[in-house]
């Protein structure tokens, strides 16, 4: 259900936004603060301890690199989780066997 007060909120949030409309196209300017350290490259962002700009841009190859690393890490986490579960299971089995032997 569409709420009237929600639309009112959206409209109020839109009133002070300055945009240019050309037919169906809408564009606006983004203010970028420029100072000594306002770099926007991802590698500088990752390896420098200086303050970056508000926006960090990635080129396609860096994005693919990051995606590769994330996928690798996810696979690694999954395999480690599996190993952990197996070890846990073994521990339970051996504890149960030890308890059985002690009782018998």
């Amino acid at each position, binding site marked *: 259900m569409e709420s009237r007060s929600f*639309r009112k909120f959206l*409209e*109020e*949030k839109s009133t002070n936004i300055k945009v240019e409309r050309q037919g169906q196209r809408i564009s606006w300017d983004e203010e970028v603060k420029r100072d000594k350290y306002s770099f926007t490259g991802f590698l500088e962002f990752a390896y420098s301890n200086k303050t970056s700009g508000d926006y960090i841009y990635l080129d396609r190859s860096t994005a693919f690199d990051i995606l590769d690393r994330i996928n690798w890490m*996810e696979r690694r986490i999954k395999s480690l989780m599996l190993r952990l579960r197996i070890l846990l299971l073994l521990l339970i089995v051996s504890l149960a066997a030890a308890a059985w032997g002690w009782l018998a």
Partner: protein
Amino acid sequence: MGMVSVSSKRPLVERLREELSKRFIGNEEVISILLLNLLHRKSTTLIRAPRGTGKSTLMLLVLKGLFGDEFVVISGASEVKRGEVVGRLHIPSLEKKGREKVLWAKFVRAQGKGIDEVNRLNPYTTANIHHLMQFGEVWAYGQKYTVEDYTLIANENPGDVTTFIQPPPFYDRFDIALYLSSLTVSQKFALQELNNDYGYDLIKSMPRVMEPGDLAEIRREVEETGVEPGLIGFINTLVRDFQVCVRGKEHSSVPLPVLCEGCHFTRFVCSRVKEPPSERATLILLQLVKAKKWLEGKVEEKDVIEMAKWVLIHRTGFLNPEKPLKEISELLERERERMFERESRKQWFILNELYNGFSPGLYRTAKEIAAEDNVFAEELFSLEEKWVREGRISREETLKVGLGLE
């Protein structure tokens, strides 16, 4: 931000603040929020603190300031009987006329109610008070008593070994929960001076600052105070950030953090909230915003963040519950940044445009934003459903499919 006309009753609240500050040392931050919370109908406050930090003193000072001697305090530490909390049978009526007449307890009838050590109340008493707070009525011997407007202040030391564990829905009925800290050295000196000045009876020295009708009039005026849609939106978004889970935490038996494994939104507030706050959080925040606007003439988004600390702390189950004050402060700090990012991204403007009409370019931008904001994503999901039905986009194109949620 908005301005309101000054009420003639405002000086009364300022006077209450002054009289409280003269007698209550330290924890100034909580006095402000406590005062604001008194300004709406059926106000309930919970004060949590270790032993000897002034929680009972603060409770009694406020009740005395508002109601003089016309308030009732029950104590969880002593044996509380049903007749003292709800009501008892009028024996002569039963004996002479065979009629069950209930004499309703002063606690039920009084406008000023206090509960000392609420965590030590027995479950039966808690259930009665819970019912009173939820439905505004109490039952005894098959008869009902509807309570009028009231102010209820309770206190507890969460560190005490209690006889009973009160249920979370009971605590949810408290509008705010205030945490008091122990006094610093200089504050101890100040307290000793105060005790000397007031003959070691701070409570007795507290004057009544309001006439019976004043509080009702103030509460009526506060209720009628208007709040801008932008600020209401801010409150709703803030609370939603604490509730939202794209993996359906509310109805899932998988506990956190297992449920969050591999989720796109793991760095958000949602991943540190085990049990989300109830919708009451939004209602209370709105009441507090109205009260602040009525009292001070204006209210800003940063004030809402400050208030949220006391509204959310007892309603939220944290993943790291060991230090709730630190946890809530950290999460609210994240929220402050997140709200700023939302403004920078112009996301509400984009959503507004999409509500006005589908545009492929803006939809692409909205999808990128939604990947950074789960609350925005939820709103986009519902728009996508509409567009899929209208045949503007295919199911495969949707963000839900893109995030692997469908």
